[in-house]
C-alpha cells in the first residue's frame, strides 16, 4: 500500500451486535488508494456483516468508519455513489441484452443522460463488445460475462470496488483472467476490497486480513503472514488461524 497517503477505507473499533451476538467485534484497519485488500475469514466470522457496514447497507452498533471519506453512520447514501459492488452470485441480468445491462447498472450507479450514453459506448468499445451489444448476457461466454460484470461495477469510476467471492465456481483459466482485471484496475488507482475462499488468490492481494470470531486476527502482506506463521502457503496461514475459532457459528 502507501501508494497514496490518505486511506480510502478507515475503520476504528467498528462493531455490530445483533441482540447478545457480536458479529463484528471492534475491527480496526486502513486501506490505501489502489490497494488490493483481501478480506478473508471462515464462514460465520463476520465478513459479510462488516462488508455491509462498509457499503452503507447496515448501521454499526459502535466504533467509527469512513469509506471514500464518507461516514458509515450519517452518509450511507453518499457511500453508495463512491463504491462499486460485484459478486459471483449476483452480477448481471442474464435475460437482458449487453447494452441494457450497462444502461441499467449505469443508471443504478447514478449516471444519466449524455454521461450514461457516453459511458455505455466507451465500455462497448473498450471491451470489444460493439458487435455483441444486442446479445443476451446469458449467451455470452463466461470470460466476457466476467469482464462485463466487473466493468459495469466500476462504470461510475468509483474509488473502491467491493468484490464478494467474485470467482466462486469459475474455471481456473477464467479465474486467473479475472484477477488480471483486478490487478489492472488497481494499477489504475481503484481500491479493491475482495473476499475469496481460494487461498491462492490471497497471494495476489497487497495485504490480507483474516477474521476469526468477529475480530481481525491477522493483517499484513501475504509474505509477512506466511513468515510469521512459519508456513509456505496462505492456505496454511488461514487454517492455523481459523482453527482457533471458538464461536460455534
Amino acid at each position, binding site marked *: 500500500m502507501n501508494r497514496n497517503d490518505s486511506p480510502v477505507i478507515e475503520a476504528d473499533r467498528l462493531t455490530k451486535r445483533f441482540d447478545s451476538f457480536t458479529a463484528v467485534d471492534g475491527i480496526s484497519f486502513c486501506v490505501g488508494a489502489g490497494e488490493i485488500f483481501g478480506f478473508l475469514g471462515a464462514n460465520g466470522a463476520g465478513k459479510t456483516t462488516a462488508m455491509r457496514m462498509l457499503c452503507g447497507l447496515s448501521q454499526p452498533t459502535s466504533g467509527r468508519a469512513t469509506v471514500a471519506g464518507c461516514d458509515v453512520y450519517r452518509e450511507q447514501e453518499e457511500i453508495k455513489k463512491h463504491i462499486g459492488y460485484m459478486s459471483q452470485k449476483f452480477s448481471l441480468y442474464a435475460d437482458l441484452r449487453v447494452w441494457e445491462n450497462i444502461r441499467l447498472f449505469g443508471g443504478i450507479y447514478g449516471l444519466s443522460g449524455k454521461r450514461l450514453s457516453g459511458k455505455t459506448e466507451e465500455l462497448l468499445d473498450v471491451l470489444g463488445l460493439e458487435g455483441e451489444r444486442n446479445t443476451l448476457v446469458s449467451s455470452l461466454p463466461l470470460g466476457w460475462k466476467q469482464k462485463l460484470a466487473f466493468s459495469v461495477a466500476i462504470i461510475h469510476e468509483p474509488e473502491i470496488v467491493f468484490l464478494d467471492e467474485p470467482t466462486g465456481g469459475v474455471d481456473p483459466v477464467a479465474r486467473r483472467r479475472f484477477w488480471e482485471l483486478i490487478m489492472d484496475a488497481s494499477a489504475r488507482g481503484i481500491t479493491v476490497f475482495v473476499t475469496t475462499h481460494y487461498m491462492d488468490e490471497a497471494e495476489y492481494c497487497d495485504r490480507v486480513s483474516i477474521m476469526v470470531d468477529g475480530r481481525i486476527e491477522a493483517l499484513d502482506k501475504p509474505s509477512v503472514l506466511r513468515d510469521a506463521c512459519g508456513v509456505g502457503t496462505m492456505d496454511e496461514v488461514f487454517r492455523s488461524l*481459523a482453527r482457533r475459532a471458538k464461536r460455534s457459528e
Partner: protein
Amino acid sequence: MNSVVVQNISKAYGGVTALESVSLNVGGGELFGLIGPDGAGKTTLMRILATLLLPDTGSAKVCGLDVVTDWKDIRRGRIGYMPGRFSLYQDLTVEENIRFFASVFRTTMEKNYDLIRDIYVQIAPFRHRRAGRLSGGMKQKLALCCALIHRPDVLLLDEPTTGVDPVSRVELWDMLGRLKRQGVGILVSTPYMDEAARCDRIALMYSGRCLSAGEPGVICREAGASALYAVCSDNMYALLSDLRSYPGALSCYAFGREHHLRLKPGESDASLLTGWLCDKGHSGITVEPISVTIEDWFMDKIVQHNEQE
C-alpha cells in the same frame, strides 16, 4: 461391483448441451470426484443418477439398477443424495429433520447412529435449533446426516464444499474419508481443483464433457509432456506479462505466490530465462522446475478446448 456406471450419457436443455456423451465408472466403496467449474454438467449428471432427470441418450446404473427403469428401487434407499442447494425442512429442528428422513426410509436414527455419529456430534449442541437458523457449515453437516441416515450404498454429493471456507472444506473431506472406510461409495462433485487429491479417482469435466478420468497422480504424470517452471520475482504483476512474451513460453498463469510457466514443446531449457528477466529489470528472480498439478493440467485442456470451439 461398480456402484455407478455411466455410459455415453447426453442431455440437452432446449438447445443447450449440458452433457455430451459422458462415460465413467465408480467402483464399490470408492471415493470418486467429479471435478469441474460451473456449467461443466456436474449437477445434471448427479440429478440423472439420483433419478430426478432423464438422460436424452445413453444409460446409467446405480448399484446395478437402471436409472430409467429401476428408479423406484434406487430411490427406495440405495442412494443418499445431497443437492447443491440446502433442501431440508427449514422450520423443523436439526433432530426433527434427521428423524423425519429416517422415518421416510422406515428406519430410525438410533439404528444407524454409528454411521452419522462423527458428524452428528458436531451439530448435537444445536439439535433443538431450526434448520433454517443454522450457519452454512452446520447446514452442510445436517444435510450429510440426513443423506446418510438410511444407510445408503452410494452417496451422491453435489458440491458440498462450494462457498465453504478452507477449514470446513478440510473437515468435510475428512468426514468423507471416514465414511469411505465404513464402506459407503461416494460420488462427489467440486469446482475446487485442489480437492482432486482427496479422491481415489476423478473425472475432469468441462463444458458437458469428461476430459479425462483416472487416479489424480496418474493423470498428472501423463500430462508432463512439456516443461513447467515456477517463477518468482520482486514484481509479480510485471513478471506475468514479461513471462508471456518470453520467446520459449507456451503459456503463463499466476499460481498463488508463483507464476507457472509452460515452455513450448522441445524447449526444456530455462537456463537463459533468468538473464532474460534480469535484462527486463527484474530482481529477486527464482526459476524452479516443478511437476504438473491437476489445475495446470486442467487449464491446458480448457485452453485447447476453447481454441477448438
